[in-house]
């Protein structure tokens, strides 16, 4: 949640979300944000949210939000780890193709940017591409076109995605990390891309020497 807040302040497109600890406010937030929504746990200790049954998607109304909220809390109660829970995030549901973007520190190249196809098959498909930072618009364009998912982005049935918008997004990440080089790692996952870009979740690791 903190990483998302930080990125939002830096002008990154973040999927609208609010955190709460009560069933009633969760439903109220959902109403304000607009259905469908996703509920997910916010926790510093639990990284793989889905494995703990901590994510509920495609909630269409207040009733569904409330019952999803209770289900999550119930699971954590049974597991006896409810104290690891900071709250539950109500987030607008992401639409479009699912991507991942990130920044890593390579021992030979320094900061590198990564971009690729997201979703549950990330590891199997390995449809990702890397460039040392900083990148130019030409690099950003080449990165997108290198991906297998490029064929889907440009398919006649997929008219909404403007490749220049993705280029801007990658340039913004490169620029951001150049200016904030205490960032050691950054994971934007998932990022939904349709006619707009929406970062759904993020993790940022700050370099221990500088922080």
């Amino acid at each position: 949640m903190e990483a998302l807040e930080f990125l939002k302040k830096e002008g990154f497109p973040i999927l609208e979300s609010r955190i709460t600890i009560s069933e009633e406010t969760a439903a109220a937030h959902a109403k304000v944000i607009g259905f469908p929504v996703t509920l997910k746990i916010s926790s510093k200790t639990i990284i793989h949210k889905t494995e703990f049954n901590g994510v509920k998607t495609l909630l269409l109304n207040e009733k569904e939000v409330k019952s999803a909220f209770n289900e999550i809390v119930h699971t954590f109660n049974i597991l006896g780890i409810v104290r690891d829970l900071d709250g539950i995030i109500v987030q607008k549901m992401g639409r479009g193709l699912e991507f991942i973007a990130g920044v890593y520190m390579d021992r030979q190249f320094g900061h590198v940017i990564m971009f690729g196809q997201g979703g549950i098959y990330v590891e199997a498909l390995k449809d990702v591409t890397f460039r040392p930072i900083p990148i130019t618009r030409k690099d950003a364009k080449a990165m997108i076109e290198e991906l297998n998912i490029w064929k889907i982005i440009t398919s006649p049935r997929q008219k909404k995605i403007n490749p220049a918008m993705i280029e801007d997004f990658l340039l913004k990440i490169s620029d951001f990390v150049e200016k904030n080089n205490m960032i050691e790692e950054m994971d934007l996952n998932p990022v939904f891309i349709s006619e707009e870009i929406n970062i759904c979740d993020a993790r940022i690791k700050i370099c221990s020497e500088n922080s």
Partner: protein
Amino acid sequence: MFDEKLKRLFSPNSIAVIGASDSFDKLGYHVMKSLVKGNYKFPIYPVNHSAQNIWGIKAYPSILNIPQPVDLAVIVVPAKSVPDVLYECGKKGVSGVVLITAGYKEIEAEEGKILEDEIKRIASEFEIPIIGPNTFGFVNLTDSVNASFTYEFSLIKKGGVTLISQSGGFCHICGFLAMEERMGMAKLMSLGNRVNIDFPEAVRYFMEKDEATKVIALYIEGIDEPKRLFKTIDSIKNKKPVVAYKAGKGEKGDEASRFHTGSLAGNYRIWKGAIRQANILEVNSIEELIDTAKVIDLCPFLKGNRVAVLSSQAGPGIIAADTLLLSGMVLSKFSSQTQENINKLLPPFAIRTNPVDMGPAWYSPETILNILKVVADDENTDGIIFIAIFASANLNLTKDMEKIIEGMEAFKKPIIACLNAPQGIWDEEIKILDGKKGIAIIHTPERAARAMASLWEISRLKD
């Protein structure tokens, strides 16, 4: 200053071989053989403790006893003697050193690293550029300088490809295949452990200072500061095309590379992106490296990706067309004028549109060449794959081609040709035709098509 020294290193006016020998089981014997049989035109000074003459040439006990100046010293003495010998080279004022001896950073024992640091220190004290240690040497085909322990490199055709390699073994296989594939080379070298000449220094020198080099081929396993190489290339104006073969792609390769030349191979996926970012064309096999470098050296660049396939037999033409399409190229659609001209030359017994089956012109080399000329003038075609496979009836094709092409102007578009025949039939003609007037001969239709696609990528990267 350093550039002037590198020039004297790569094109020396005199060479001392320290550790020269007359016995076949010593590397010093083979270095002498390379220089002598490789027709080195300037004085050679063998240096050996005890011998009076080596290879029939007067020998000296130390480089300091040579009365004349020495540009290049090739060192082949055991690792422990190298610091003393190198110090003498510094005293003598040599411009450069090829340090063939191995047993430094690349070995597991700690003393290897200590010795290498000592060499580094002496080299910087006297400002001597060093190729190596742990190298087979270098070969300058342009000026007939074979400063390596493999004489046979002198048999490679002279041309515009310069290979800068981290591995000597890679240079050997690449050099021998270059002979088979008639790839013309300017220089080839293995940088070994890279005491002070690393990829950036070598690439900059051959891009900026060596006219004979038209295209640079790199074989990289791992370098400690890859960003320095890419920044160097980026900073050079009027860049020459670069193709690179990156090895050490898996984790095992990473380790092997460190033991090979002392550097880790790194994360291949990041390397891939960095290579592309630097406008370098990545190749993924030795054949691809040779085919690509050769066509860049011999052919004009492509202005577009529209290719015509002209084949004297349908099958190989279809294979070439398939490969072109899979590699991002398109088959050109001839202008009506071109099509009309082809139709005049070919009876309607086979396909006359692209890919053209020239089968009906089987008996007439002249017709086949006229079709080539007509298509070379076609405004909708950027490059041509020309295929002629031997069959008894077309025995004279290449001979006639040779005669007709001799009188023609150079093609302004790349012509990549496949001329395949049993050994001993078209050999001489193929040798003469390869490289003539913008024609490059590549071994098979698939490889020809892929080379065309690579040439298109390089042509685009240039802008």
